[in-house]
């Protein structure tokens, strides 16, 4: 596998994703999410933002989109990455060149993922900038790089799942629906298991919850940030999500396991199947 070809496909994929209007819409939404809430809070409910919270307002914009917006973005970018090439009939021209399927596969995977990473980074930067601008100097920013990195890693789970369904189904809308269903089902089951655990105290519900893909995805950034944030900020954050996983290591391992499984399955399928003519 040659790195230059992987890079060629990665650049191509990023360019292709940007050319799609829905990805542009996501970038616009990222800008909105990273800025608008701060200005709204400032204008409408300034009294809600008490002095101890003001220096940590950046946390809101960085952490709250993690549970839905970042995962939704991952699904949207990845579900069409492979499948749209089949639907548009462009896969056969790209693969009729002297490039290996692995170069094509990893190039496209990394290209879309780099776009996702850019969106996560953009959201973090906008949140910190807006919080500073509206609520004054921000504190605890030392944990920001690790938080953003953990969000990037966590986002790889549903990015890879959607990428896998895109290859398996070769229909963008179907792969998006299926991968989104997996995501929402996992979230909903997680909520039910939490409620059942609270009501019954039975460990089986807690254990089952640990293995849901959304649990590790939601937990990792929070687990990393929790020790470094004041309790008043953590209280606010827990409105959004509570870490389910017992440790950073377990959470990271589960994320890697889900990501690698999806990548291996899709690569094996792609490597063994015919390159479809235009899928209609």
């Amino acid at each position, binding site marked *: 596998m*040659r790195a*230059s*070809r992987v890079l*060629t496909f990665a650049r*191509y994929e990023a*360019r*292709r994703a940007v*050319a799609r209007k829905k990805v542009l819409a996501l970038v616009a939404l990222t800008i909105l999410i990273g800025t608008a809430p701060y200005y709204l809070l400032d204008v409408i409910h300034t009294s809600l933002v008490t002095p101890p919270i003001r220096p940590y307002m950046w946390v809101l914009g960085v952490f709250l989109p993690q549970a839905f917006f970042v995962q939704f973005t991952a699904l949207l970018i990845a579900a069409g990455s492979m499948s749209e090439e089949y639907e*548009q*009939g*462009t896969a*056969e*021209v*790209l*693969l*009729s*060149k*002297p*490039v*290996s*399927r692995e170069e094509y596969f990893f190039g496209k995977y990394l290209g879309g993922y780099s776009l996702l990473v850019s969106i996560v980074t953009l959201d973090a930067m906008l949140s910190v900038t807006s919080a500073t601008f509206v609520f004054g100097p921000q504190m605890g920013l030392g944990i920001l790089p690790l938080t953003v990195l953990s969000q990037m890693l966590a986002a790889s789970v549903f990015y890879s799942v959607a990428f896998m369904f895109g290859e398996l189904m070769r229909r963008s809308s179907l792969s998006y629906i299926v991968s989104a269903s997996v995501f929402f089902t996992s979230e909903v089951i997680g909520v039910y298991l939490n409620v059942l655990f609270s009501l019954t105290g039975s460990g089986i519900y807690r254990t089952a919850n640990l293995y849901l893909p959304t649990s590790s995805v939601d937990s990792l950034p929070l687990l990393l940030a929790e020790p470094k944030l004041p309790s008043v900020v953590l209280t606010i954050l827990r409105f959004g999500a509570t870490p389910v996983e017992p440790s950073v290591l377990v959470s990271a391992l589960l994320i890697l396991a889900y990501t690698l499984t999806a990548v291996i399955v899709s690569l094996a399928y792609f490597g063994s199947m*015919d*390159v479809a*003519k*235009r899928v209609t």
Partner: protein
Amino acid sequence: MGQRLDEVVTFQQAVKDYGPKVIGPITFSVQGGEIVGFLGPNGSGKSTTIRMLLGLIKPTSGVVRLFQKDPLREHVKALAHVGYSPELPNLQSFLSPRELLRLTARELGLDEETNTQLIDILEDVGLVQYADYKIAKLSKGMVQRLSVAQAMVGTPKILILDEPMIGIDPAGVVQFRSMFRDFVKDGGTIIMSSHILSEVEALCTSLAVIHSGRMVFRGGVEGFIQQSLSSRSLVVEVGLPGATESLVRRISSMPGVTRVTPNTTGMLVEMKKEVDSRAEIAKAVVESGSPLLGLHYSGSELDEAYINAIRLTTQ
């Protein structure tokens, strides 16, 4: 496998089993320097054959080789000098022609210094003035030209062209024809699938005819016509005073001539396929005192031969 060294393409008992439909077994080869017209009705297996050759689909059984290499297992080596233009050129509409050719060059491992070469290619296919337009804004014919252009990037030794002339205006057809001839003159090989038989007749040096997943003919154009037609029609064009009764009688009496039909430009002579009386007919016209303006087989012979061949295979 006993392949000849100049054998560019080899199919040996290659089969693609789709379940309800089976393509093959296909056995044929293409030598370097040929322009092969790949003919067959819709759904006969042309695209499957081409896609097996490009390593896009895996044969269920049999052997497929491109430059003596397996296009699936040795994809990078086998495809190193191959240019492919698909039947429906579904190109990336968000790119410009220049960007598409640059992408293709990068896929081929060529660097930025090929920029001049890319512009030359766009010039060759008549798209240089549209180099920076979005492909989405190009007409169907322009996209077809671009599809051929991307196949020409790098140093292809073989062009695999699926219906390359569709949507191309007459000037473009002439331009492409000359470009393809130059390509072969420079040592290249072309496999061209087409339904425009006049184009195939004008350009191709040999034919591969496939029907219902089976190769029904492989050989020269002339051989195919000979094999598929029971008789041949010769157009004889004469100047004033035209085809006289005595000339018609003389030609009618020649061995193998089955019918002579005088018309406004001369006559149409039908002959048994195994007979070639062109020299005798030319001599007869000249001796009759009429100037001989033209003597050629009917332009629609390949069409007739093709239709006959397909009909016979279907029966």
